[in-house]
């Protein structure tokens, strides 16, 4: 007998174009509707058909949001799945798939033949394989039939009655089969349902970002497609129309950034989205934003580089790039959210800081975060009221008025009687070219003066565990929040706690003291320990150990538990 309780990991594997993503989407949605906590993340190759991709769905009693190596149930839709995931398959893994596609395993493995092709044939179209698979999973979990039938009805409604009926039939076939094998193979799954979860949101990082920028009052996007940055562009193209969002597909990234800065200049609130390689081409534009003090918000969905690298995988190696992009020196801010609610929050904060301080602001995410889906209570989405901070200009308006706090009130052309000039040369208060060394110093210091306000408004890191009393502090940022939370919980050691930064630059003055007299372990998905370096530079912190990963996959909970155990 196999008993699973409170936490299962269900992995779907198949070739691109085989419907793995459909299965994931359906399954996750239905499970959430049933009241299960779900978290799903995926890894896939840079191709449109073929290859070998997989999605992990965790169904857990407690809320979880991290990747585990462990596979409890593996649905192998293709013969390459087993070799592809070999290392994660243990004798406890239950493999489901057509006999022919799950061979080549050691005899210990628990294989269940699921005749997908036969089912699909019975249904008259291989397209239904996906829904059958969903049904099988639900059967094993003994989900509530009514709930998924209802969901399928809604989901396929606009495709017509026949499609609805066929899909329900497919799901039921699978469901019956799933129940049957569970019984037959002695598989028992115990998972808690909760009514609260039924009513939760199901959000991917991408969706949280899209909703967050809308909440931030974003009304303009000019971008060029690049994974994993494209998701936001697509989201705004599809959802933005009713919000009056202008969507411009740029000819290249240079156009995108200059276009978007131009849009801000004229009073719009714009974001550009891209990945590291596309961002490289925006570097001069960042410097422009810096000197003309015209805001810009940049979303960088990180993936492993250098250059094309591994286009569909994950990494956190563009922090230094965001920190130092642009020749010359000027203030900036960088956010790195770790959960959908943080994504939603920092999207708004990014626009707030950009608009208030008239600087370039970055949102650093990564493929793993953007593609991961989880359920969360709607109340967790926090609103910041967006302010546009644009003034009506008077005749004597000076775009770069020298002020106490370095912020010169921002006018836009056509609003008020004043004239609004911006200039990429060093300039005077009226935005005209200057060659005066004194004016240069005044303007340079004025721009840098803004850093004080930006730092004051910096988000404090999130404390995980008892930071105050811990002697070892694990530091993480961006997408690694979930995995550190779970690993610490598993570890259950008093002396070890963690800090997660969803704003990585500037760092708040106040959190510096949290580091004192502790062993500092910095965990990040890159080779050189970029955030560790930043901590040294900003706080003078001495980093005791770096936990690094740079193979394109996210950290797993097991991996972190092992590494943290090895510390002590």
């Amino acid at each position, binding site marked *: 007998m196999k008993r699973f309780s409170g936490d299962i990991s269900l992995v779907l594997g198949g070739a691109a174009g085989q419907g793995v993503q459909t299965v994931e989407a359906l399954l996750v949605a239905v499970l959430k509707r049933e009241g299960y906590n779900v978290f799903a993340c995926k890894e896939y190759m840079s191709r449109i058909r073929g290859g070998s991709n997989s999605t992990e769905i965790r169904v857990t009693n407690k809320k979880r949001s991290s990747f585990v190596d462990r596979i409890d149930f593996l649905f192998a839709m293709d013969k390459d799945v087993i070799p592809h995931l070999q290392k994660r398959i243990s004798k406890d893994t239950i493999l489901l798939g057509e006999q022919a596609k799950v061979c080549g395993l050691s005899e210990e493995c628990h294989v269940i033949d699921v005749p997908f092709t036969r089912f699909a044939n019975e249904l008259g179209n291989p397209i239904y394989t996906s829904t059958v698979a969903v049904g099988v999973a639900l059967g094993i979990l003994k989900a509530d039939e009514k709930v998924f039938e209802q969901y399928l009805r809604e989901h396929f409604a606009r495709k017509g009655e026949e499609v609805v009926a066929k899909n329900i039939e497919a799901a039921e076939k699978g469901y019956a089969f799933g129940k049957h094998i569970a019984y037959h193979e002695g598989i028992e799954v115990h998972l808690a349902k909760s009514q609260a979860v039924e*009513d*939760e*949101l*199901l*959000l991917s990082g991408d*969706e949280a970002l899209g*909703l967050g920028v*809308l*909440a931030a*009052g*974003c*009304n*303009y996007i*000019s971008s060029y497609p690049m994974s994993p940055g494209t998701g936001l562009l697509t989201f705004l193209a599809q959802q933005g129309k*009713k*919000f*009056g969002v*202008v*969507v*411009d597909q*740029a*000819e*290249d990234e*240079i*156009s*995108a950034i*200059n*276009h978007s*800065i*131009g*849009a801000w*200049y*004229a*009073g*719009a609130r*714009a974001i550009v989205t891209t990945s590291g390689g596309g961002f490289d081409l925006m570097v*001069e*534009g960042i410097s*422009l934003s810096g000197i*003309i003090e015209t805001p810009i918000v940049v979303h960088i969905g990180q993936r492993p580089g250098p250059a094309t690298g591994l286009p569909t995988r994950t990494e956190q190696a563009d922090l230094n790039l965001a920190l130092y992009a642009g020749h010359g020196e000027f203030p900036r801010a960088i956010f790195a959210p770790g959960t959908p609610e943080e994504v939603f929050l920092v999207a708004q904060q990014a626009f707030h800081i950009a608009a208030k301080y008239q600087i370039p602001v970055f949102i650093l995410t990564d493929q793993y975060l953007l593609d991961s889906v989880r359920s969360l209570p*709607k109340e967790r*989405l926090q609103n910041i009221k*967006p302010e*546009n901070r644009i003034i009506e200009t008077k005749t004597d308006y000076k775009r770069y008025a020298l002020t106490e706090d370095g912020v010169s009130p921002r006018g*836009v*052309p*056509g*609003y*008020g*009687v*004043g*004239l*609004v*000039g*911006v*200039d*990429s*040369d060093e300039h005077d208060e009226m*935005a005209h*070219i200057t060659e005066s060394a004194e004016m240069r110093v005044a303007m340079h210091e004025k721009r840098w003066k803004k850093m004080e306000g930006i730092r004051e408004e910096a988000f404090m890191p999130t404390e995980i565990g008892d930071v105050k009393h811990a002697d070892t502090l694990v530091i993480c940022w961006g997408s690694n929040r979930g995995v550190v939370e779970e690993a610490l919980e598993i570890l259950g050691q008093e002396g070890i706690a963690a800090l997660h930064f969803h704003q990585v630059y500037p760092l708040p003055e106040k959190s510096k003291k949290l580091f004192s007299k502790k062993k500092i372990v910095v965990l990040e998905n890159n080779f050189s320990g970029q955030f560790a370096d930043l901590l040294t530079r900003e706080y003078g912190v001495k980093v005791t150990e770096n936990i690094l990963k740079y193979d394109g996959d996210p950290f797993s909970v097991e991996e972190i538990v092992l590494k943290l155990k090895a510390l002590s």
Partner: protein
Amino acid sequence: MIDKKLYDMPQGTDMAWCPGCGNFPILNIVKMALAELDREPQDVVICSGIGQAAKTPHYLRVNYFNGLHGRALPPAIAIKVANPKLTVIAESGDGDTYGEGGNHFMHTIRRNPDIVSIVHDNMIYGLTKGQASPTSEKGLKNPIQPTGVIVDQFNPLAVALSLDATFVARAFSGDILQTKEIIKAAIRHKGYALVDVFQPCVVFNKQNTYQWFKEKSYYVDEKHDKTDKLKALELAFDLDRLALGVIYQREGKPTYETLVREGDEPLYKHATDMTALERLIETYK
């Protein structure tokens, strides 16, 4: 008609152009055209890149976005979209527009926003001291090609026509009156309007002088059919006799800012509809 003086900078404003430079008349012409078309300074935005020509917006009283070298067009499009009520002019050099900014030049034409591109074409990189620009003539000696330019001269009119630009003109800064009319027509035109203006650089281009432009060029006459694209291309390809005037114009093609957004409310007035957002969020349940 607005008083042209309204565009004048305060007396004593330092100008970085050389005495005799062909940029002066263009500046003057732009002021006259704006005045005659009744555009209030605060409703006009000039976008420029970097170069001698690109300093233009510092010398007249309008709004301006003096951005990066080669990048005058992307912000110009954005400004027009963000506030369609503004008159938006991109004004930059030949190197800026056709060299560093060549990709934007092509893809701006494809979009057809209702903006004007005034290219100060001195066939040279002025600000960086006399290197060849894309429009430099073959054979022109310069610091980087001491034995003369070896690549083909860029043909802005032909490229614009090949991409179905709806207003393609060429002018000569030595002829104030006619150039003013051309620029006025460009501003009035609904859609992307290219005006390539021959602009003598008296310091670095000793080959293409006022005299040279005068001798080489002529105006297309009344009989010229502005809607005949192949004819326009023929004129564009003729490098011996340089046609001036509106070489090609076609009305009626929808402009980008009307296609990519609804209405013409300036975006600085826009705010997200929070109720709609609330509804959208609900759909993720």
